[in-house]
């Protein structure tokens, strides 16, 4: 998984340093650190992982091993409006797959990708627990319930 090359600024490194320090530079806190760092940067580019590894005094291979293990962590920047489709069982049996297909079609991207303009990104997630509203789609913080494929266009229109 190679990622887009970025150059970290001094202040970014200072920010990562601060996050690591807030966890006492403890290698056992790696996952908590990565959560915080991802919240700050939006994703976890290789350069950021390198700094984290350095600060926590662990191998960057291990950091990468952890990043690639957990689906919550991403090395690809999310779109400005990240779209997440719940593919939990409740949503699945109520047609989440068709909704997902429609999003793919409308946006012409695959799961895990972002639109070329960086506006939308598409991801699946497992059960947000709003099974009463199945199928559920989240766009950023906003949750849409009982989404059917023909509603997809309308949802996307909200972000024009």
């Amino acid at each position: 998984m190679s990622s887009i090359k970025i150059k970290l600024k001094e202040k970014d490194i200072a920010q990562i340093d601060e996050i690591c320090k807030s966890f006492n530079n403890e290698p056992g806190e790696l996952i908590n650190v990565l959560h915080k760092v991802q919240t700050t940067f939006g994703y976890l580019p290789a350069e950021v992982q390198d700094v984290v590894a350095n600060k926590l005094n662990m191998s960057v291979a291990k950091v990468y091993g952890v990043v690639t293990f957990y689906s919550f962590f991403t090395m690809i920047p999310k779109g400005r409006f990240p779209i997440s489709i719940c593919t939990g069982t409740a949503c699945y049996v109520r047609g989440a797959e068709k909704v997902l297909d429609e999003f793919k079609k409308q946006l012409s991207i695959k799961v895990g990708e972002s639109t070329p303009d960086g506006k939308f990104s598409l991801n699946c997630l497992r059960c947000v627990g709003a099974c009463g509203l199945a199928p559920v789609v989240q766009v950023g913080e906003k949750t849409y319930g009982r989404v059917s494929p023909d509603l997809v266009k309308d949802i996307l229109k909200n972000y024009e």
Partner: protein
Amino acid sequence: MAQQIKMHLLVCGGTGCRASESDQIQASLEHELKVHGLENEAKVVTTGCFGFCEKGPIVKVIPDNTFYVQVKPGDAREIVEEHVIKGRKVERLLYTDPENKEHVADSKHMGFYRKQIRIALRNCGFIDPENVDEYLARDGYQALGKVLSEMTPEDAIKIIKDSGLRGRGGGGFPTGLKWEITRKSVAEKKYVVCNADEGDPGAFMDRSILEGDPHVVLEAMAICGFAIGADAGLIYIRAEYPLAIKRLKIAIDQARNYGLLGNDILGTGFNFDIELRYGAGAFVCGEETALIHSMEGSRGEPTFKPPFPSVEGYLGKPTNVNNVETFANIPPIINKGSEWFAAIGTARAKGTKVFALAGKINNVGLIEVPMGTTLREVIFEIGGGIKDGKKFKAVQTGGPSGGCLTEKHLDIPIEYDTLIAAGSMMGSGGMIVMDEDDCMVSVAKYYLDFTVEESCGKCSPCRIGNKRLHEILETITKGQGTMEDLSKLKNLSHVIKDTSLCGLGQTSPNPVLSTMENFWDEYISHVVDKKCTSGVCKSLMRYVIIPENCIGCMACARNCPVNCITGERKQVHFIDQDTCIKCGTCLEKCKFNAIAII
């Protein structure tokens, strides 16, 4: 005289209802009360989940137990003006009984609640989870006080053992015995871990408890700490549960402020504190050894047991891991006694179990029933039966580790062993109901898709075997399966179960095996007849024109995105099967029922 609060308006603040703007409902209600000068007579309380997620957002009016469903922020004014001021219920917001089409005013009379006994969920939808005082008012921390002041650790363990409580997270290991083993492990440091990494797709009971009653988990963990000799607790919680995390953080602060966590709890000299650890999206971390590795900052790969966490767990120290629902049962057991608890349920499974009802069922939601309740009672009485009057086909219990049960299993009492005997399992309590429109081969494939995605990759049968199972199922749903594939499925499933390292792999073929066992005909029709009777498997579907009904209006041909429909005006049309992408547009556009799926 000072006005006394005579009415509580409980607004569900669970994730499901929040997703439907329940926080705005709360704000609107408060606003309306203020406008009408009623702030001192009625108060709005945000609670945890009521369980009846199907019809959320829910507002419940106390003391008359009026249960308003699918409330919108704009309904606040009417509720205040009609109900609070005039005492008239807002009829249109009341729940309608699907059986007799009548409004049900009092939640006590709803079929959904009638059969439930709430122990783990007793405070959910009842108290404000962000207010420790409401928890204290409901016997909160009394059990901890009792244990610390009046019992020895052995006494506490004995009560839990006698109660017959078994782990609610999946395996059903006796909780008291687990505590005892951890107590007996000698070490200078021990840990209590709460497994809140609920990962079953379609299960949300742990989240609801954490959101609706976070203190019960803290109290139970402290009790466990005292019993096993630990002074540190960790809650491993999914990062996907921001609301639960927020409420846990508030609860931990409040408990610390009252001295119910921290040093010298209730003046007994007992120290115990709790920290949060976040999961990061890995289902396998529900397995306790994987969970521990994840808490240590590593890849969440399971390790072979023994050693069990009770002996060698977090940072190599004895660690007691229980899940949220298990912990939620602890304080009531201590308060009311093991006999009270043991009297509920069946001979081999005591107490209650929380289930997340979802799928093609009328009342999607969270329920708690005594062990031994039948599937029929749960699905048809509490769950209100199948949506849109369709026919019940199967119920999947136990999440990706479980199996699909059918009509013939509906009357078995739900408990750990009976479900296993029927080819499924209790799991964490997900219950997905399927109807005649669900293709069981596709359902098995769906679960394998999940397992393949969530396998950690450490052991070869799970890493490669599940992938191959999924591929074979894919072949079958595409209509390219052979009878040999079916025997491969069977052998592979058995070997994966037999050889996988952890519970994930040891159970991942269950959806395949149980659907093969119960829906063999469907497999055969996919493989031999090349037909998917539920009409789910696209490749096996054919859209055809019924010549008798076709009037040649050309609506279908005009709308076909791939132009595979030909025919002159007023002539019978024809669909070219090689080009057809089975999008279904023609079926939708035809006004004359001239298109059929075969």
